[in-house]
């Protein structure tokens, strides 16, 4: 674990935090109240009052995401979001906007995800007047200048062609898995799109997408911190100036049923192995079964946590890699964050196991070890001891998820996405947790998890060799530089011959320079 810090970063906190900080969280104890509703003005609101907070957090949630990219124009939602958040308005050039925001130490950013888009920002109450003016101006009156379009389109292309493909094998593996699972649906491509899709985008495409999706019937206003009613009304009145239009609506996402175990190898010369596998699950926040499965998942693979069982089996006992985790909700940029992100709410979720980078020679052994552990969990369920320990862990661990007003507002917005009313997801989880039973958890495991129909993505520099091992179900015995206990060595024998069970013809290879091309 390491990080790079410098003095300028230290005193320029927002950048510093964005780039470097391990986000640590907690449910704040300051007096606050939350409310979700709408007024005659029409724009729904999510309000989180924290009177002692001298800042105000803003979140404008638009109900579109990359699943709304037109076919052949993959990346359009992301580019449109960037044009709004990082481009000129009719009143100000982009350099003028930066200049005005600079002394406030404030900014607004866009996060376009698969099924939602949020424009967020935070300002001190001393600076609200100017910040609100700039934020509303960005949403209501983007100038769509050619220069901004060229700059942001170029950045987005590079994020696909060099960043995703070459600069982070682990994120590449996860993106390759989602693309594999959701093939031929609008949910397949990364939020940034495809190379061909982005290359095809025109400024006119962006303008049309903005007209279609940035409308007053498609937005929810979120405010948190030390705001007053006058600000609520002012923001609502501003957003009511957005054009009339239809909500973005749902998009049919129906991935093909997975037959057996199928593998996608991403051949990247010189790469070690980064592995992800999983399958779609049909569960959403607010449902009791999700909380039951959350307990099971926490035991199996709590993110960046030594309590993860997969972490114990693959890293701690055997030292094969840096970490091994599992997920039942989307967790993008997992290598750069400790706690779950907000505003990546999705109706289409997958169960996902992430095996971090390891030598190619040990890749299939690690894959077998992880599959075997999931298999055992599905067959045997959790033990009473593991259930009680994990429940105890989660009772307090979830308190670290949302320490700041910004975080808590993010959760409230996500609650609205999922239709959770009242106190919200984290509070509901805290209420449900003590009432869960081991039987419920094990029933949820059996109902939602299995190991016979799943997809596997492996970024590797040795695709050909791995393909043969996978296809032939070759044993993968392992040796260590350090002595291991007889128990581990005995278990290794089982792991090394655990049936891979790859479906016939179920292995495909794509060159890294071709993935996400179109």
């Amino acid at each position, binding site marked *: *674990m*390491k*990080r790079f*810090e410098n*003095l*300028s970063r230290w*005193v*320029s*906190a*927002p950048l510093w*935090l964005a780039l470097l900080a*391990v986000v*640590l*969280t*907690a449910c*704040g*104890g*300051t007096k606050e109240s939350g409310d979700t509703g709408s007024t005659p003005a029409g724009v729904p609101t999510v309000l989180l009052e924290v009177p*002692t*907070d*001298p*800042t105000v957090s803003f979140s404008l949630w638009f109900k579109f995401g990359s699943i709304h990219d037109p076919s052949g124009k993959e990346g359009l939602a992301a580019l449109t979001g960037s044009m709004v958040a990082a481009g000129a308005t009719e009143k100000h050039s982009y*350099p003028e906007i930066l200049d005005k925001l*600079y002394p*406030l*130490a404030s900014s607004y950013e866009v996060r376009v995800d698969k099924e939602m888009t949020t424009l967020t920002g*935070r300002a*001190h109450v*001393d600076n609200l007047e100017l910040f609100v003016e700039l934020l509303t101006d960005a949403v209501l009156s983007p100038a769509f200048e050619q220069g901004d379009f060229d*700059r942001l389109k170029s950045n987005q292309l*590079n994020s696909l062609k060099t960043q995703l*493909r*070459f*600069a982070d*094998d682990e994120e590449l593996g996860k993106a390759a898995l989602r693309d594999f699972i959701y093939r031929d649906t609008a949910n397949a491509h990364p939020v940034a799109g495809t190379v061909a899709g982005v290359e095809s985008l025109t400024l006119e495409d962006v303008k049309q997408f903005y007209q279609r999706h940035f409308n007053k019937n498609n937005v929810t206003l979120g405010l948190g911190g030390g705001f007053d009613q006058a600000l609520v009304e002012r923001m609502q009145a501003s957003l009511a100036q957005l054009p009339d239009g239809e909500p973005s609506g749902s998009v049919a996402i129906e991935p093909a049923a997975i037959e057996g175990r199928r593998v996608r190898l991403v051949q990247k010369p*010189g*790469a070690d192995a980064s592995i992800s596998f999983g399958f779609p699950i049909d569960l959403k926040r607010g449902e009791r079964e999700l909380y039951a499965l959350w307990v099971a998942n926490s035991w199996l693979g709590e993110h960046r946590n030594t309590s993860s069982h997969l972490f114990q089996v693959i*890293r*701690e*006992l*055997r030292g094969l*890699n*840096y970490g091994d985790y599992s997920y039942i909700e989307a967790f993008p940029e997992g290598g750069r964050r400790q*706690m779950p992100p907000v505003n990546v709410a999705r109706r289409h979720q997958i169960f996902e196991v992430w095996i*971090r*980078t*390891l030598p190619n020679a040990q890749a299939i052994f690690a894959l077998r070890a992880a599959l075997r552990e999931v298999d055992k969990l599905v067959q045997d369920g959790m033990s009473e001891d593991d259930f009680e*320990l994990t429940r*105890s*862990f*989660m*009772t*307090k*661990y979830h*308190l670290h998820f949302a*320490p700041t*007003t910004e975080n808590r507002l993010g959760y409230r917005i996500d609650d609205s996405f999922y239709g959770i009313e009242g106190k919200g997801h984290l509070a509901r989880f805290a209420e449900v947790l003590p009432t869960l039973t081991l039987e419920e958890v094990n029933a949820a495991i059996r109902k939602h998890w299995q190991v016979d129909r799943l997809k596997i993505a492996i970024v590797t520099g040795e695709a050909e060799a791995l393909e043969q091992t996978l296809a032939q179900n070759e044993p993968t015995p392992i040796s*260590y*530089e*350090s002595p291991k206990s007889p128990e581990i060595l005995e278990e290794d024998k089982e792991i090394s011959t655990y049936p891979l069970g790859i479906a016939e013809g179920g292995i495909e290879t794509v060159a890294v320079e071709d993935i996400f091309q179109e």
Partner: protein
Amino acid sequence: MNISFSCRAILGLSALALTLSMPTALQAQERFFPYESHSETLDNGLSVVLIPMESGGLLSYWTLVRTGARDEVEPGRTGFAHFFEHMMFRGTEKYPAEKFNEIITRIGASSNAYTTDDFTAYHLDIAAGDLETVMDLESDRFQNLSYSKAVFQTEAGAVYGEYRKNRASPFFTIYEGMRQAAFDEHTYGHTAMGYVQDIQGMPQLFDYSLGFFDRFYRPDNSILMIVGDLEVGPTMEMIKKYYGSWKSGYQSPEITPEPEQKAERRIEVSYEGSSLPIVWLAYKSPAFDPADKSLAAADLLCDLAFGETSTLYNKLVLEEQLVELLDSGTNMNRDPSVIDVYTRVKDPANVERVLQEIDQAIAAIVENPPSAEELEKVQKRRKYSFLMALDAASNVASMMARILAVSGELKTVDTYFTTMSEVAPEDIQEAARTYFDSQRRTVAVLKGAQ
């Protein structure tokens, strides 16, 4: 025993509001950090910093060992401080790793650690009611760490895995190359990760690891910081109970100073993947001193010359769009270090042009200092952004870790911001002359496979 106690009221977020509302000129040095704090040094040399603040019943618990990559002075030992950080999770006789993990899990703590050039940090976010449980665990492992050779060798695989994941990043690759080129003698020449050949040799260093713990993991080389819902008196009593028996005996390594650089160095760093060219300039700079106005001026100059409202940013990023990003920063280090300027160039053919533009931006400041208005904007931004980030106990602790580890005391925050507020336009001009000298810089260019 040194004791200092600040009598500030617990103002929490209200204090933040008050401080931000004060005109710059009225912000006296002792009032900048908005929270109450208590600093005390135990008889064994352990520095303790407590920051009580409203935090919803949570605490952030940090142990800072003032040993990092800087202390890896022996040949073949680069990366060992980081490797040892991993070993600190391998248990004691009283609390073997399995038991340690079970307790941490049962109390729902968020636990992690990281290693930098100057220090190693171990941190947990916990419920306030679990303070004594955690203090028992933490004080035990820092005094009584115990692991087998087999466990030691197993952990080497995890560290190698960490290196393998990092090496896919072009920024990690150029940073590693730049550091190696910029320093001939000083240990800042290698990253906290260490050289790959040294990482591969780590399984053979079991005996060395025992000596490493003995030399560096001592109270007189460590700082305990706790932030959040706590009472100073009872907490101090608890700390003395659990940490009082920790034996002092820190052995400071002999770190070879870096000779003065007298000529520019240029290197090309190859990257096996596809990447836009990255250009990284490292200008030699002094060790961090919060009272050093010239260093504070250099820090502000980074924003003025390369920040997102600078003329150069406007030209290279927004107008001509020759580069995708441009950033810079001074480093807060115990020994003389470097000021970084880095950019990602869209077309390899424009690398030299971009370097010229950077030189011209510095020359422009040498020629004409910024206006008072421009400087005031940067100073104001720094203060707002710093204070706005102190919005949760965990964030406060995270923000304070480096300044405590490097300077040893919390009042450095106030000193530094006071110094920064006194910087005048001519100081910026002088900093440009003094520090942004091309003869004292290293220029690294990363070129990826096409």
